[in-house]
């Protein structure tokens, strides 16, 4: 890891009371992580894992019960650092009687931007998020995807150094998602730091440099995306045709192979150390080997195993 420390979370605990008179429930169990300058950090987890709670603590909207959270070296309860920070909440809601342009003007005023800079920046942003044509339409006429674009534009209106995005692809069609991914990558090219909450693993694999997987309020994995790919036992995928059921059972018993139907063929996943033995067994059983490839452990595998681990 290189670069200046942008976000530091140390032992953050969050307890919430689900209702009046009810017992407190712990939703964050002392989480620790840091985000470095210029990286795209993916904060990944299933629904209810504590992603949004963590983000709210970082934005000073919610208070940690214990632990410490700092952004740009400042305590998150301060307001000054927010001059350099942009935030897109999950499913953002705006004043629907304002137009897209008026909305951005409102947020730009709150950021203390002068009139001339405001006008220039807003025009550029509207073009960047593809809302130039709808700039003077009231937000009540906007689709969810268009509202999401307004949300992204307001997060970037003051040209922040750090951007926090909570489910930025939510409500967007495939083209919109591609555009947002490109936008996030452009932000990194500009030297900005992006913190992204999401449960869409494909997006994470495409844009993130480092990832933290949070499940049930605990960080299960933290590291660079390429490190995840090499983590765990190496495996090989063998695609075969004409494999009979008895031979398949034998492979499962002898080599701990996992069999999966792929069309009229069978994919056999085996530990790398058994590859030669499995190939010999397959040929002996009269099966035809179609392809053989090393299995790259995906983020999804890791994510699912983290979720399973937490349920045990």
């Amino acid at each position, binding site marked *: 890891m290189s670069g200046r420390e942008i976000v530091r979370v140390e032992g953050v605990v969050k307890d*919430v009371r689900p209702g009046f008179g009810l017992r407190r429930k712990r939703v964050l169990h002392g989480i620790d992580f840091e985000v470095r300058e210029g990286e795209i950090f993916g904060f990944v987890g299933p629904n209810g894992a504590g992603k949004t709670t963590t983000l*709210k603590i970082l*934005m*000073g*909207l*919610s*208070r940690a019960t214990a632990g410490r959270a700092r952004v740009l070296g400042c305590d998150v309860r301060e*307001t*000054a650092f*927010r*001059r350099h*920070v*942009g*935030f*897109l*909440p999950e*499913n*953002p*809601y*705006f*004043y629907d*009687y304002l137009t897209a342009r008026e909305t951005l003007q*409102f*947020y730009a*005023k*709150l*950021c*203390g931007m002068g009139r001339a800079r405001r006008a220039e920046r807003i025009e550029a942003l509207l073009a960047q998020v593809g809302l130039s044509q709808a700039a003077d339409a009231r937000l009540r006429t906007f689709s969810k995807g268009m509202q999401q674009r307004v*949300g992204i534009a*307001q*997060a970037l209106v*003051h040209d922040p150094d750090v951007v*926090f995005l909570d489910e930025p692809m939510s409500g967007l069609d495939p083209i919109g998602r591609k555009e947002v991914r490109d936008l996030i990558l452009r932000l990194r090219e500009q030297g900005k730091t992006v913190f992204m909450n999401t449960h869409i693993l494909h997006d994470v694999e495409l844009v993130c440099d480092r990832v933290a997987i949070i499940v049930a309020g605990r960080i299960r994995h933290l590291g660079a995306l390429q490190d995840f790919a090499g983590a765990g036992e190496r495996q090989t995928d063998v695609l075969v045709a004409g494999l009979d059921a008895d031979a398949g059972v034998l492979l499962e018993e002898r080599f701990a192979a996992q069999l999966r139907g792929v069309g009229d063929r069978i994919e056999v996943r085996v530990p790398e150390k058994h590859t030669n033995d499995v190939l010999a067994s397959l040929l002996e059983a009269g099966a035809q080997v179609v392809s053989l490839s090393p299995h790259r452990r995906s983020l999804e595998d890791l994510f699912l195993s983290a979720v399973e681990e937490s349920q045990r």
Partner: protein
Amino acid sequence: MNPSRSLSCILAIAANTVRESVRSKLLYGLLFFAVLMIGAGAVIATLSYVEGDRILQDVAMAAVRFFGVAIAIFVGIHLIHREVDRRTVYTILSKPLSRGEFLLGKFFGLVLTIWLQMAIMGAVFVAISLAVGAPLGPAHLAFFALTAVELALVVAIATFFSAFTTPVLAAFFTFGVWVLGHGSRDLRDIGAGADSRWFQWVTWLIHRVLPDLETFNLSSAAAHLLPLTASDWLLPILYGAGYLTLVLFAAVAVFERRDLR
């Protein structure tokens, strides 16, 4: 944060609050009935052979105060709750402004909206008084000025409750404070004549702690065109400003500590 930036944030929030508030159908409904009641004063006055002008103005001023408070409470209680409920507050508070600035912006925006409504009610009052030839004097101006201060205080109280509770509870508490605030002098006098020291102490405490809203009631002086001294209107304004400041401080302190989930 420097004061001019802080002021510019408060003004931006206030301007947006005015824009949002004037779209409230409830506000227009209440304003319509207020104007109707002021007009009804002229009809009621014709039923009396004596002091028709006074009856007209009494009814009209009561309508201004009642509907003014209704607007202040019903719009004020949603002030913070709606922002949190709709989560518009998340994007606003992620910008470099404090929760106190946000809350003050909302407060000033709503006060401005209510004063605009009062100006409309005042214009109708003056127009009807002139139409029927009822006398108008400085006491009427003082009545409207002090009612405006009272309504600002009611908005501050509604803002305080709105900062940490639901609109229903905020309405209940604010209305309770308004009723007790108007009756606290009578309550204190009743308590003073009671045998129980405990009752004496409680009624005295209610009078001291809750705002003495009767201070702002000049309707009787206005209806009878009584001469007023500067202290009759200046002291209530100072009292109202002081009390309002304390309530806003408390509202900001409560809102600063609130967990926005």
